[in-house]
């Protein structure tokens, strides 16, 4: 009996009136965990009952503790009829299972009912006693910490980064069970909420197990998603990055983790076995990989072979996870030669790479594969020096038919399923696993084509419409520093020159990882504008946050590409084929738009790129958001050149000239707006632009079929290669117009999709997180693609305008982490949901933070420290009025569409091994000790600040702290932010992950103010419940908050609506940093200030 869960029901308040006669309520509470239920006494005739119950004790397995939520139901006692439910509270016990997280849950929780919303509050105390040493368990994974944050959490140090972990769990959706026909909507909703809560608990436990097997103790960048597949079931899946984390304060870890200065620097090509033993010790089996039998490889095009059972994927053995030796039948890999030493896993690795890649790879090193197949990292920002080079965005998509694959037997009888679900879908998780496996393999091969051995900023998502599902994955191909990795993991040989001659830290990541003679795509290379030694591409696209050390010229801005494509309504395979045929064009056009908009803003790099493609019955929506910046290290972008199709026509030429002028004006204006004044360089100064093997510009137009004929045009004007837009039909004109319609944010505002805005410093502590949802109904059935595009673009632009307007009182401010999610909930409906945070900053941007700050803060705390030493760019300036450098189109995104598909055959495979196990170390011992002392200080500080902001559990300590905490209010203020930090504060403790799923339904839509009123109150309720849980854990903020899903279904005619929302984040305690400002500024001052306190 490994654990005892104790719960006490203290009191309720603001209960609804359940008895009309007396205008009062006779409330009592049922406390349920697993199959055990306790009840409190009835507290008669009170809307503010005091139960003050005994401690209810549940003796349970720790496995259950991880899976199950504590379920608290408040009921109204009725002598004559059935007791009426008032509402429920689900409490996730998980944070209590971690010794470092919360120790007690105590506070007021909103009592939630899926039909009525929040109905009063209940005060609850929950504790857990674990009997055994946590680490001895293997079924459970108690003690593994989870973080949504996609960087190394503050106050932690990554001793080791183990790599990718993934898992998925499948179940039948209660909403579609036969029993749903006879039960109330409330019962159905509650069954669903409970099931999902169970599934996410189970998922988290399973991932935790994997982490333990790998020898880690935490998951960072934990990303959990739901796929509501309707009748075919419900999938909960998660990915994350396994790490071994260590608190700064603990002294023990310095022993286990060799100091970088003393650690043997990356010995090349140690035997895999050694490496493995070093990591895991003796107990770790090789087979700790995901139970995902390798199935099939997709073709390198991401218009994937749709689903057909006759495809190779059906040929898989349905075997266990260790059966990895099967030879792939895809005809892509030639694994034979490569597999000579490393066994099955190696074969697996090899097979998806191109033949030629393999040869080089095989020759360059012995392969090493640890348990993990995928060198993917969900992190988006990294300790300094971790990221060596960035190749570009890699993405893959695949269209799948849902029910056909996993339960063909059911046919049309689906809705009356009485069959034992488990027998029908026993292999369903494997089916889903195989799908994702395919995608991941494709991503990996793309990364390889870019000469990279890892993918960072990795994420996965789906879009489901009826039975069609688009699976997408994307990330940024990268090379990571071998110094941070376990010895022997890295094939240093092939990339040695880069490490022997370390690049300057602030431009190194821009340098190309691939071979300049065999570029994976047509790109124009130039010598780095900062170090002048390495080559850089002319444009760089990434999914990660801007590295803290990167040098940026001017400010960044949000860049969005939006696209609608109509498609015919269809069923089944026809539909899936149609969709997969459309995908490449969409990717291509989105990419084109991004590129055009980037050029228009005179920028040369995108960070935090997120491309979403959503499928509806009669259309596909694509939305790409990113933060554009001007990287000082990259060449200046050329302008955009407009070319008329029919030269000689005078009218036309005038027209072209007019447009050209508008574009040039726009570029000039943008340069001023974003303060992009790069130092201009002479060619002589730089060395020279790399001679371009094929001196041509690609032409981006909306109609890709015509681009071929134009591709041979020599459009370069002298040395200044311009980016050419061809006007030959109305489409192109539309494109150009849409290019120019994006309004810049009004004065005082900035916006970006990344954590912080490049070029803005001095954040003040004001933040305002918000969620906004807008749904458009397209009444006009005869819409064209252009019409739709216009509508969609306007929708997004208007949303942004609304935000600026609403937040006008907070200027100067920046909307950070603007995360747009599009969906097509029904035919003719387009839904856009946005979550972002407005952060205020000091108008005075002159005082930049000292550059050394980044390094002094240490590995885990860098991303909020934006210091971009602009003087570096000034160094290189020579004032020659030479026009800007050569530019052209570099597709650093490998979007594997046909339109841009590239022959990868000739590329070197420089990085043939993956480095799953990375070691991150503190940089110096001195710094470590500084941190230790600072840590103790911050604890001391926390005590005092706790009194200020009363994150203490309210229930008992209210009398102590509530009276003075807020004057009128007794509710803890809980800040929420999608970022990993709160400006002006320091996170002193992570209390655990918040992962909540709610359903709200109404049958009185009009009375609740229509869909807007309904959703407005639901979102407010979700916020309230998140805040209450955080406060009950003792926290005062949520970081890395995100709303994963917001699924709204409405039927105004029936006066009904239903909505599902899934949110997640990390509950933290943070304290104001004001009196510690100096501490964090420089390492030198740390000691003295600490001493003073």
């Amino acid at each position, binding site marked *: 009996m490994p654990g005892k869960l104790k719960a006490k029901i203290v009191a309720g*308040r*603001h209960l609804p009136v359940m008895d009309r006669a007396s205008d009062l309520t006779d409330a009592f509470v049922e406390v349920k965990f697993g199959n055990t239920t306790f009840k409190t006494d009835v507290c008669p005739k009170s809307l503010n009952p005091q139960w003050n119950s005994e401690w209810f004790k549940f003796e349970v397995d720790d496995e259950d503790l991880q899976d199950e939520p504590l379920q608290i139901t408040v009921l109204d006692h009725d002598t004559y009829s059935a007791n009426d439910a008032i509402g429920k509270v689900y409490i996730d016990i998980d944070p209590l299972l971690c010794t470092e997280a919360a120790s007690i849950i105590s506070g*007021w929780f*909103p009592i939630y009912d899926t039909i009525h919303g*929040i109905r009063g*509050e209940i005060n609850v105390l929950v504790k857990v006693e674990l009997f055994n040493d946590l680490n001895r368990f293997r079924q459970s994974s108690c003690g593994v910490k989870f973080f949504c944050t996609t960087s190394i959490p503050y106050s932690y140090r990554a001793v080791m980064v183990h790599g990718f972990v993934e898992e998925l769990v499948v179940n039948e959706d209660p909403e579609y069970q036969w029993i749903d026909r006879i039960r109330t909507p409330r019962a159905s909703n509650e069954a669903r909420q409970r099931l999902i809560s169970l599934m996410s608990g189970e998922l988290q436990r399973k991932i935790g197990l994997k982490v333990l097997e790998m020898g880690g103790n935490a998951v960072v960048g934990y990303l959990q998603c739901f796929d509501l597949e309707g009748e075919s079931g419900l999938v909960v899946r998660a990915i994350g990055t396994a790490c071994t984390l260590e608190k700064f304060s603990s002294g023990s870890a310095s022993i286990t983790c060799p100091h970088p200065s003393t650690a043997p620097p990356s010995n090349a090509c140690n035997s895999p076995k050694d490496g493995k033993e070093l990591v895991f010790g003796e107990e770790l089996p090789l087979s700790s990989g995901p139970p995902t039998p390798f199935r099939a490889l997709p073709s390198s095009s991401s218009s994937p072979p749709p689903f057909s059972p006759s495809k190779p994927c059906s040929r898989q053995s349905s075997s266990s996870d260790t059966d990895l030796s099967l030879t792939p039948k895809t005809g892509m890999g030639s694994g034979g030669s490569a597999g000579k030493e490393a066994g099955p896993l190696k074969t697996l690795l090899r097979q998806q790479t191109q033949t030629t890649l393999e040869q080089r790879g095989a020759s360059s090193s012995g392969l090493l594969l640890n348990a993990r197949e995928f060198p993917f990292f969900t992190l988006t920002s990294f300790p300094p020096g971790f990221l060596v080079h960035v190749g570009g965005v890699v993405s893959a998509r695949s269209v799948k038919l849902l029910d056909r694959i996993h339960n063909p037997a059911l046919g049309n009888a689906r809705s009356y399923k009485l069959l034992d679900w488990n027998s029908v879908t026993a292999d369903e998780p494997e089916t889903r696993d195989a799908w994702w496996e395919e995608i991941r393999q494709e991503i990996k091969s793309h990364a390889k084509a870019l000469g990279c051995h890892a993918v960072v900023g990795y994420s996965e998502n789906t879009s489901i419409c009826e039975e069609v599902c688009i699976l997408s994955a994307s990330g940024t191909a990268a090379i990571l520093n071998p110094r941070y990795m376990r010895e022997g993991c890295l094939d240093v040989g092939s990339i040695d020159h880069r490490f022997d001659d370390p690049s300057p830290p602030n431009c190194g990541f821009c340098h190309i990882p691939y071979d300049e003679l065999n570029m994976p795509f047509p790109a124009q290379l130039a010598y780095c504008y900062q170090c002048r030694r390495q080559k850089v591409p002319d444009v760089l696209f990434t999914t990660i946050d801007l590295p803290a050390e990167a040098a940026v010229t001017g400010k960044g801005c949000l860049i969005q590409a939006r696209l609608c494509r109509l498609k015919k309504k269809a069923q089944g395979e026809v539909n899936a084929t149609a969709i997969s045929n459309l995908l490449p064009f969409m990717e291509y056009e989105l990419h084109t738009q991004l590129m055009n908009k980037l050029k228009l803003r005179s920028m040369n790099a995108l960070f935090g790129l997120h491309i979403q493609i959503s499928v509806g019955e009669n259309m596909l929506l694509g939305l790409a958001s990113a933060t554009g910046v001007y990287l000082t290290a990259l060449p200046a972008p050329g302008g955009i050149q407009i070319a008329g199709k029919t030269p000689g026509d005078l009218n036309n030429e005038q027209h072209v000239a007019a447009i050209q002028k508008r574009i040039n004006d726009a570029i000039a204006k943008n340069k001023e707006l974003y303060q992009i004044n790069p130092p201009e360089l002479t060619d002589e100064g730089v060395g020279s632009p790399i001679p371009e093997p094929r001196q041509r510009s690609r032409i981006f137009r909306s109609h890709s079929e015509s681009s071929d004929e134009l591709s041979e045009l020599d459009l370069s004007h002298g040395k200044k290669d311009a980016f050419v837009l061809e006007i030959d039909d109305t489409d192109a004109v539309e494109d150009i117009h849409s290019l120019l319609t994006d309004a810049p944010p*009004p004065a005082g505002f900035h916006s970006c999709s990344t954590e912080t805005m490049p070029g803005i410093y001095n954040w003040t502590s004001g933040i*305002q*997180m*918000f*969620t*906004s*949802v*807008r*749904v*458009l*109904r*397209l*009444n*006009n059935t005869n819409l064209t693609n252009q019409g739709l595009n216009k*509508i969609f673009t306007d929708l997004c632009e*208007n949303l942004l*305008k*609304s*935000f*600026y*307007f*609403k*937040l*006008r009182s907070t200027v100067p401010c920046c909307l950070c982490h603007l995360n747009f999610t599009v969906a097509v909930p029904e035919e003719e*409906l387009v*839904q856009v949901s946005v979550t972002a945070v407005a952060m205020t900053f000091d108008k005075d941007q002159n005082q930049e933070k000292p550059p050394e700050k980044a390094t002094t803060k240490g590995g885990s705390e860098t991303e909020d420290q934006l210091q971009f030493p602009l003087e570096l760019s000034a160094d290189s300036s020579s004032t020659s009025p030479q026009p800007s450098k050569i530019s052209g189109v570099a597709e650093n995104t490998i979007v594997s569409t046909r339109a841009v598909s590239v022959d990868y055959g000739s590329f070197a495979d420089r990085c043939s091994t993956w480095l799953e196990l990375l070691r991150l170390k503190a940089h110096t011992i001195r710094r470590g000790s500084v941190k230790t002392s600072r840590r103790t200080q911050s604890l001391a500080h926390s005590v005092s600040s706790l009194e200020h902001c009363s994150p203490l559990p309210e229930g008992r300590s209210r009398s102590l702290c509530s009276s003075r905490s*807020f*004057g*009128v*209010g*007794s*509710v803890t*203020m*809980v*800040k*929420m932010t999608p970022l990993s930090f709160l400006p002006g504060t320091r996170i002193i403790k992570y209390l655990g992950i918040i992962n909540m799923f709610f359903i709200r339904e109404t049958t009185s839509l009009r009375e609740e*103010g*229509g*869909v*807007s*009123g309904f*959703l*407005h*109150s639901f*979102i*407010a*309720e979700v*916020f*309230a*419940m998140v*805040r*209450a849980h955080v406060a009950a854990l003792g926290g005062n903020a949520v970081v890395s908050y995100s709303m994963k899903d917001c699924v*709204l279904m*409405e039927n105004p005619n029936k006066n009904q609506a239903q909505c599902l929302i899934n949110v997640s984040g990390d509950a933290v305690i943070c304290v104001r940093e004001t009196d510690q400002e100096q501490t964090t500024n420089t390492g030198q001052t740390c000691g003295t200030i600490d001493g003073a306190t």
Partner: protein
Amino acid sequence: MAVELDVFVGNTTIMDEEVYQLWLDGYTVNDAVRARMEGGVLDEFDATADVLLSDTMDQYRTFQMCERLLHSPAKLANQLLFQIPPHRQTMLIERYYAFDDVFVREVLGKKLSKGTKKDLDDISAKTGVTLKSCRRQFDNFKRIFKVVEELKGPLVENIRQHFLLSDKLARDYAAIVFFANNRFETGKKKLQYITFQDFAFCAGQLINNWTVGAVGEGLCKTKNNMVEDMDVDLDKEFLQELKELKVLITDKDLLDQHKSLVCTALRGKTKAFNEMEANFKNLSRGLVNIATKLTNTKDVRDFFIDLVEKFIEPCRSDRWTAADVKLYLTHYTNSAHILDTFKHQVVWDRYMGVIKSCIFKMYHD
């Protein structure tokens, strides 16, 4: 193409004070948008009417959701649904309970009943305050009336604590409750010139001096009847005692003596001396009669109209200045102390103190 749904929810609830005021004033969303456009929001910030509409709708929804909480402001502080910083909460409550003086003037002293509520559209038409706003204000009066009705203790303090209002607003509500409870007649034509603030001041005087609570604080703490409504009802004992003042007008000697004392004091100090002298007996009779009749509920209701008819109007027709009135009343009150046969000094002071300050307040155009 139509916007089917449009919401914006902040973790900290965003509320625009200007829109809040428009909402409180009962503007419809469209009227509010128009008002905001005229207010020039769009000029100072580059935005379109759509944006303004969307923002206004969001705000209106938020206010509507908040309204339930505002009905019991204490809940606003410990509810979990909206995260509102304390100073914003204070603003929300204060504004929600703020009222229009023109409106309150119409319902002052009326029974806060359904019947009155039905008349609100007339009042709305008359005052120019929107019906919606009238209803909110009326409901606020009623709500506060109901709550304090059942509470013991000082009226102003009760209102302040239960509705978290500022001192000023709490005092105004105390006046409204006091007027509603005693049903003072305020609607007569002759009283039209008196503003709500005048009445509120008078109510404050009455509450502080003529109720049981007023005595309770200083004099009668020992009395075991810590009566409910001690601030709302006039002190019955005191009203009885007022009958004794009748001697001032019934006793001819006393009346003459009083007059000569006052006239001596006033002589040469005012231009209106002749009128004062001529009217002394009338005026004195008027004031003392008011005092002696206050045991009748009906006459309590007519208290203000009596003051106007019996004192203010005669003075005004003789063109007394405010200073004249002040001078006269001061000497009138003080001279009574010198009358050796007049034994009711305490009651006289308690009565005249209030009368004096009420008349001062009410003596204007």
